[in-house]
């Protein structure tokens, strides 16, 4: 069983934090001055779990969590559960085949936070390719970016997408295909991996023999952090 994927599938609250490293000062005359360091800007997600999972039927989850511990990443997705796939659903108007045909343009590629795409579909220039917050993944690199603006087809052979963070992929991405929306994957680990407590509840018996009398409660929320050390 995939531990963090199960946590995502069963959590009852999801907090997403993509805040950047910034410094903010308010001057004496109340003018804001800010500084920013362009970093990997990793995804951070905090997942709250209900204390209602029966122990007996979730022992595989516990083992997966203990095996992952606090230092092992896992690739997770929000398309795994039909009840969650709406969260990062693609908002543009392209078909799957049209998306699959798109590649990163050469030589413009992906420089800074400007992603240039080509092999665009022959559709009306006003059609929307990406809406703000649409996830875009380059090739097999599990580092999703988001489109910060609405991108329409236009009339050129390429379009530029301004992404939420700069290109952190060290290898060349020119010619790579893209994945969008909830088909994207995140490589996450959980630095605070909570421990669990068994509390009485969820009593079950079979043939007069107790098979479960414990619910799992967690010591903390699961604070997932994107693993980008080897991007």
């Amino acid at each position, binding site marked *: 069983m995939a531990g963090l994927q199960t946590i995502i599938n069963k959590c009852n609250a999801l907090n997403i934090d993509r805040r950047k490293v910034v410094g903010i000062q308010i001057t004496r005359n109340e*003018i*804001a*001055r*800010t*500084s*920013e*360091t*362009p*970093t*990997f*800007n990793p995804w951070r997600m905090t997942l709250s779990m209900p204390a209602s999972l029966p122990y007996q039927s979730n022992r595989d989850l516990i083992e997966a969590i203990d095996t992952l511990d606090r230092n092992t990443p896992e690739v997770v997705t929000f398309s795994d559960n039909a009840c969650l796939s709406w969260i990062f659903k693609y908002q543009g108007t392209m078909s799957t085949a049209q998306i699959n045909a798109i590649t990163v343009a050469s030589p413009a590629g992906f*420089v*800074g*936070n*400007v992603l240039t795409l080509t092999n665009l579909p022959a559709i009306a220039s006003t059609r929307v390719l990406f809406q703000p917050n649409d996830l875009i993944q380059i090739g097999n690199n599990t580092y999703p970016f988001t489109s910060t603006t609405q991108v329409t087809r236009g009339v050129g052979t390429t379009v530029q997408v*301004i992404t939420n*963070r*700069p*290109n*952190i992929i*060290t290898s060349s991405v020119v010619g790579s295909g893209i994945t969008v929306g909830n088909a994207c994957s995140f490589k996450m680990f959980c630095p605070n991996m909570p421990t669990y407590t068994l509390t009485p509840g969820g009593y079950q018996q079979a043939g007069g023999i107790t098979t479960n009398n414990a619910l799992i409660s967690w010591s903390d929320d699961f604070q997932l952090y994107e693993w980008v*050390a080897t991007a």
Partner: protein
Amino acid sequence: MTQNIPQVQDTPTIKSAEFVKLIVFNDYNDPSDTTVYTFSSAYKEETIDGTVYLPLGGLLAVGAQNRDLRVTSGDTIISLSGIGADNIFLVLGTKIRGSEVQVFRGFYDDNDILESPVYNRFRGIITSYGITEDREGQDDNFSVAIAASSYVNVLSNRIAGRKTNKQSWQVFYPNDTSMNQVYSIAGVNFDFGGKATSKSTIGGGGGGGDGPGRDRTGGQQQR
């Protein structure tokens, strides 16, 4: 000397990263025999003056640097991740003390592309290092701290000059024999201006009365 930095002028917002360059001298007798280590807080590799600054170097923090209108001395501390052996080797396996360290600040444009040039923030010499293990419960981390003194501090502590002996004297002037006889009179007291006596030479005797006495300095006077 003031330096014009257009990226911080007339704007309330800036984007910047710090770049650290460490030049370790492998052989004190050969200044060209160096190994360069680079670290940065940037999101990707950046090339500055032909040197590639790695984003994976493990830079944790760069200490504060003094900012004054006039040149002042100051120290700073650079913290590096000790997870992985690279940075521990850097301080234990190389001649890190005495190495040159430079800290630059580079500015990014709106599209997160590094602008040129980058600006020097600190230049100095590594004076010490430390490796720290920070263990609390099941959290176990290592960090490496490198302390550096600015060149101003180094220069203010520098002892300059020559010694009055043949070897030191001839470093700059190999043909100058002024100090050739110094070894032979080392430890001998001369009573300059005193009356010459038969016991006046070895072991604290005086020099010669009205005359120059016995000249044991090869014609040069010592005071």
